[in-house]
């Protein structure tokens, strides 16, 4: 357990180091990048990704996946955007948005945790249905003319050039991280993801934890949808399309295993910052944005392959150590 814990710590630390190295490398190529406003812009643009990625991290931690987050975000953004445009108060719009997130989370949880459907396939279907509902709701039209105050709030800064949104999300992620690692109930998530049968045997409410993970994922994606509205200022029927893959990529970059049980939400948040800022960084490096996807893909593949090779080596070494111990023990008995 001690080594595992160290490994986890090292993993989210190494993604933080990677992010810092990335920022410094860009600064080395183009010194004008290293101003507070430019660096904090990287963090400010990552807010929506971070929320979705942290939601995704919950489902990945319990050993499942939720690829309906993109359509979830799109639907919430469309509904909240429409309500605000029609002059409804902000509080009720947000409440409705979060309720939608809860309902979607419950539906996914019902399919995956209660009926036992494979999570990737079930949420893929849910993604299709939700995207269809977005088209149905908006009639394929854009939601525009959101209240100016709501849009302008996205650029209000709290600390230095960091926006209120980023600071709020930062605090939220930190709180989630502390709950997940420092409280007994928080650690249930990783326990279920690591070995669901063992978790059931020691008396953890496995099913309830999976349901909770999906509901939290739905709520965080809904929050992402609300902030998406505010930051972008308009909603298209395709808003949020592809976010699910970016969120998975962010979690993987941050060291969360798709097999469940391994990783931290801090890691996924750092991964989200990397994912969100690559296109911004490329501009400073003098590349065109055409390189976006190629470089994202290379970074993702290199990191997971190196990670897998390292892990394979560690597990091999541990196994050899165990075997050696058993052999020497056998010698003692003889």
């Amino acid at each position, binding site marked *: 357990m001690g080594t595992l814990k160290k490994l986890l710590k090292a993993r989210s630390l190494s993604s933080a180091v990677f992010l810092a190295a990335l920022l410094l490398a860009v600064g080395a190529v183009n010194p004008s990048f290293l101003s507070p406003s430019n660096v904090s812009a990287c963090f400010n643009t990552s807010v929506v990704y971070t929320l979705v990625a942290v939601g995704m991290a919950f489902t990945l931690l319990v050993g499942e996946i939720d690829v309906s987050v993109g359509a979830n975000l799109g639907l919430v953004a469309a509904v909240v955007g429409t309500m605000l445009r029609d002059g409804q108060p902000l509080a009720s719009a947000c409440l409705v948005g979060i309720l939608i997130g809860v309902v979607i989370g419950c539906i996914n949880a019902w399919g995956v945790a209660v009926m036992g459907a494979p999570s990737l396939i*079930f949420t893929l279907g849910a993604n299709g*249905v939700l*995207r269809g509902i977005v*088209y149905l709701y908006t009639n394929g039209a854009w939601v525009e003319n959101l209240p100016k105050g709501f849009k302008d709030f996205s650029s209000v800064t709290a600390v230095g050039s960091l926006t209120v949104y980023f600071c709020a999300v930062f605090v939220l992620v930190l709180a989630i991280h502390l709950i997940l690692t420092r409280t007994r109930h928080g650690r249930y998530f990783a326990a279920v993801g690591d070995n669901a049968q063992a978790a059931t045997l020691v008396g953890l409410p496995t099913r309830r934890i999976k349901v909770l993970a999906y509901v939290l994922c739905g709520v965080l994606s809904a929050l992402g949808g609300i902030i998406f509205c505010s930051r972008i200022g308009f909603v298209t029927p395709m808003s949020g399309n592809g976010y699910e893959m970016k969120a998975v990529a962010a979690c993987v970059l941050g060291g969360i295993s798709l097999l469940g049980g391994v990783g931290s939400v801090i890691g996924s948040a750092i991964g989200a910052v990397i994912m969100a800022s690559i296109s911004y960084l490329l501009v400073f490096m003098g590349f065109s944005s055409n390189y976006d996807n190629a470089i994202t893909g290379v970074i993702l593949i290199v990191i997971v*392959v190196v990670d897998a090779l390292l892990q394979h080596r560690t597990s091999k070494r541990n196994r050899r150590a165990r075997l050696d111990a058993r052999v020497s023990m056998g010698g003692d008995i003889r």
Partner: protein
Amino acid sequence: MRARLRALLAKGQASWNVMLVSLLVLEFVIFGATNPKFLRPELLFTSLNDSLPVFMISLFVTFVMVTGGIDIQVASLVGLTSITIGVGWQDFSLPIWGAVAAATVLAMACGALSGFLIAYCRVQAMVVTLGGSFLYSGIALLISTLSSTESYQGIGGFPDEFKFIASYRLAGVVPLQFLIYALLLAIAFILLHKTTYGRRVFLSAVNQSAAECSGINTRLVIMSTYVLSALSAALAATVLTAYLGTAKSDLGADLTMNIITVVVLGGTLSTGGRGSIVGTMLASFVMALLRFGLPLCFRISTQHLNIPIGILLVAVIVARSVSAKGLGLTSRLTKLITRRGGADPRGGDSQERGGQRHTREASS
């Protein structure tokens, strides 16, 4: 009723295929009765043309999913192949078939790279092919910048011998691309169900260490399935490019969900070890007719088609997992009873499946 449905679902692939066939018949009856236009052969074939890339690729993604993997990069390989054909032909003045060959080799190399990382470096298939989908669509975009044509316009004006793929119709009705699909179907069926290679694909998923011990190079087998799916993506992209008449880097970008849906609907387990080409073929027809029939007969806009199709996918997957759960429990119970009675625990079909489940659980 519920028990009967459960029994039907549990009996395995054969009765699953029967269910898919009855779904197909149902579609023909309902759509045909609502709008007789639906039954016109030329209209039917034209509508199926739109779904042909899904038809072709899903055959070989079945191989990947039988090994317990998943391939979400094929859609990006379609775009990559298409733009490589276009740029190779227009800007590097390759002969058109030379460009097609070069693009196919490139796509297969991409498939081989992902397959290598999955099989030999033991990275999860989902993660590698996710990275692959970013990387290969990125490369496709970069290749499109090599062209003198703006990337959003697409490269057109292909010679007639290339467009022939899409324009020729056997006996004036059956399109040539459909015959290509029939050929691929036959190849995939024989390869997966009638050859040693196919058996190796199945065994590599059911119990990798047992397969390894019986002298099968499981890593090579697993890697090869990704090369096959990439090859099918390249073929589908060639046909699609000829059909549309333009080469674009983002061609087929939205195919992923359809392909996975078809393969799963066809009865392939997403955990591997179980699957059939016939099932995939039937499921792709069910989906394609749904996509064609709903707008034609019930005036459902194509934008809203995701709703019924998504509901179908969700319903199927829930029904299957519920029946599998029941099956797992009963087979485990019978196993326990037969073992106590001293009888051979590996008797019927359902028990065999239960046994497979156990070995997989033990090996993972």
